[in-house]
């Protein structure tokens, strides 16, 4: 197993670099660059723009800039953000926690509701409760999340029960820890709901499908023939097998933990990496975009690797050491 993991990581390095090169080329060949907004300011002269150009090394040829960036990469130097003029790592660090918490909250919320719902729907197949869960999940699946966010905010404003976006109340620093965390949780509700509703519907459907598949297998009939109680048959034999395909999904979800959802973050003014990345891509803040893509890529590799290892643990039939 160790050899397999090492091989996967070695293969990953050129892939991640390839991806960052792809992004770098895309950012460079597109017209316009970071200094456009400054060019439109009447009071800025040509040579000042030249100075900015030199400061951001935008005057050097494209490949030299990329090589320079990769060279710094090995010194764990991710370059400076044009907009913030501070190391990119610091900019991302400031918002890493916010996106992590939001993604984690929506991940837990989704899985803790979708899995039991899926199992329950599978067990009551084609009864009216199953039909109504299915129909309701179709509706949630088809509602765009940014529309949901706007509707929730509008409702919150009418009922002023929930805060309107943001992460904390106005003067949160003089609250004690308990009040502050309660306030934070209250702020977390709307973005998490907007992010999770669609994925709950999707995950519930997958879980239900898997569960139905497994329940029709012979070994379930055999387990019942052995006289095992129904709960043991369902939650040991059936669930143990139905969960396996979801593990690969887990890997994919893990990689999404830090990419954040740009539209929801903007609408709920949640200071996450998603909205930061959107403005960075639009204003061509190249090294901030590259750092984000790099982090997204690394997490994707780790996420999938963890999922494969976990899957091997869960399902003995999958062995990685022998050739596929």
């Amino acid at each position, binding site marked *: 197993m160790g050899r397999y993991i090492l091989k996967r990581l070695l293969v990953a390095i050129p892939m991640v670099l390839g991806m960052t090169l*792809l992004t770098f080329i*895309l950012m460079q060949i597109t017209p316009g660059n970071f200094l456009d907004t400054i060019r439109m300011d009447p009071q800025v002269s040509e040579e000042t723009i030249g100075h900015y150009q030199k400061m951001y090394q935008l005057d050097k040829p494209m490949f030299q800039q990329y090589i320079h960036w990769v060279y710094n990469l090995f010194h764990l130097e991710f370059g400076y953000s044009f907009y913030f003029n501070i190391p990119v790592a610091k900019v991302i660090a400031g918002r890493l926690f916010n996106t992590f918490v939001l993604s984690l909250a929506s991940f837990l919320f989704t899985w803790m509701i979708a899995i039991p719902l899926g199992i329950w729907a599978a067990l009551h197949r084609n009864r009216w409760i199953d039909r109504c869960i299915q129909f309701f999940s179709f509706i949630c699946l088809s509602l765009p999340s940014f529309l949901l966010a706007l509707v929730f905010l509008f409702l919150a404003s009418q009922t002023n029960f929930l805060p309107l976006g943001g992460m904390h109340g106005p003067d949160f620093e003089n609250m004690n820890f308990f009040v502050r965390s309660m306030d934070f949780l209250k702020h977390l509700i709307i973005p998490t709901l907007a992010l999770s509703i669609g994925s709950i519907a999707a995950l519930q459907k997958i879980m239900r499908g898997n569960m139905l598949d497994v329940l029709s297998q012979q070994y379930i009939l055999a387990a019942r023939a052995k006289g095992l109680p129904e709960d043991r048959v369902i939650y040991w034999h059936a669930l143990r097998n139905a969960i396996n395909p979801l593990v690969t999904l887990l890997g994919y979800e893990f990689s999404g933990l830090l990419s954040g959802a740009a539209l929801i973050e903007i609408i709920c003014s949640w200071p996450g990496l998603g909205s930061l990345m959107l403005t960075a891509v639009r204003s061509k803040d190249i090294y901030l975009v590259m750092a984000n893509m790099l982090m997204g890529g690394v997490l994707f590799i780790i996420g999938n690797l963890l999922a494969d290892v976990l899957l091997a643990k869960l399902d003995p039939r999958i062995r990685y050491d022998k050739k596929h």
Partner: protein
Amino acid sequence: MTRNTEHVSEFQLALRSFKKNRLAVCCAMILFIFYAGAIFADFLSPYSYRNEDRNYSYCPPTPVRFFDEGKWVGPYIYGQTLTFNEFYRRVYQTDTTRRFPVRLFVQGDEYKLLGLIPSRLHLVGVQEGARLYLIGADSRGRDLWSRILYGAQISLSIGLIGVLISFSIGLIVGGVAGFYGGWIDNVLMRLCEMVMMVPGFYLLLALRAAVPDDFNSVQIYFAIVVILSFIGWAGLARIIRGMCLSLREREYVLAAKSLGLSDFKIILRHILPHTVSYSIAAVMLSIPGYILGESALSLIGLGIQDPYASWGNLLSDNMSIVRIKFAPWILWPGVFIFLTVISFNIIGDTLRDCLDPMMKAERK
């Protein structure tokens, strides 16, 4: 493409069980109506998508009346003039002095039906002097109903073409990787992973920004379709590859090889048909992704540009609470997006259940 007869009958079986599901059938009806509306958009819509009249900005839906003091007079409307109340809010006064009959098969804005037949015939219309807004007008007094019909042409076709592109790439890459295995499989799969690695939304942004600026709107439309499909194919390729790997060992594939058929023919004729059942369901379930993708792009101003209309840019133009409060009819495009997406989802899901037995046969 020759396909063994036993396969066809299974399709009929699947069709029969599909018909049994009333909900799926009514979704199919909805989609059929939408697509028909899109094809005949020019004819069905009272005005062309560019026809604007600034005296009617945010004009509410015009009430169509049939009776005048109890007498049946046939469908007619009154003229409306724009005024502002003391809070500078748009208020439309109807002057009941003159009646404008609403007639069918009227001569209106010039268009080319299906892009070929030039004509000026519109299903419904009102002559000069008054404007017929079935579901209201947008900020520049353009008829929202006509623009939704034209928008359907773009939004509904984006899904189909996008799926066509991403599935053909996905099938070929998946088929080749699954069939040949070895280093080809490795390279192609790493390529897939690389595309899947980049968070979709930012890839969308970066690619959209790479579109040259002198593109006219139709070229931009195709660029958006290609971009959206560029994101979609990787996931499918991986699944098709998995299926092909197991199909490759089947006896009839080995037999076909022994008969000396070219690899490409084998993939195309013997392996891919077996993935058809999975692909149909997957196609249906991924079309909504394209429609929602286009509206997300429009929300940040990178979608279809004015003056052309797509459901995405119709919705995102007025995405503000104040607009919705004073002109709620601008949410209609959202309703159409929702209906289309939910119909595709339901049909896709039902198809997957109907084709399930066949897929199980494939998988064994």
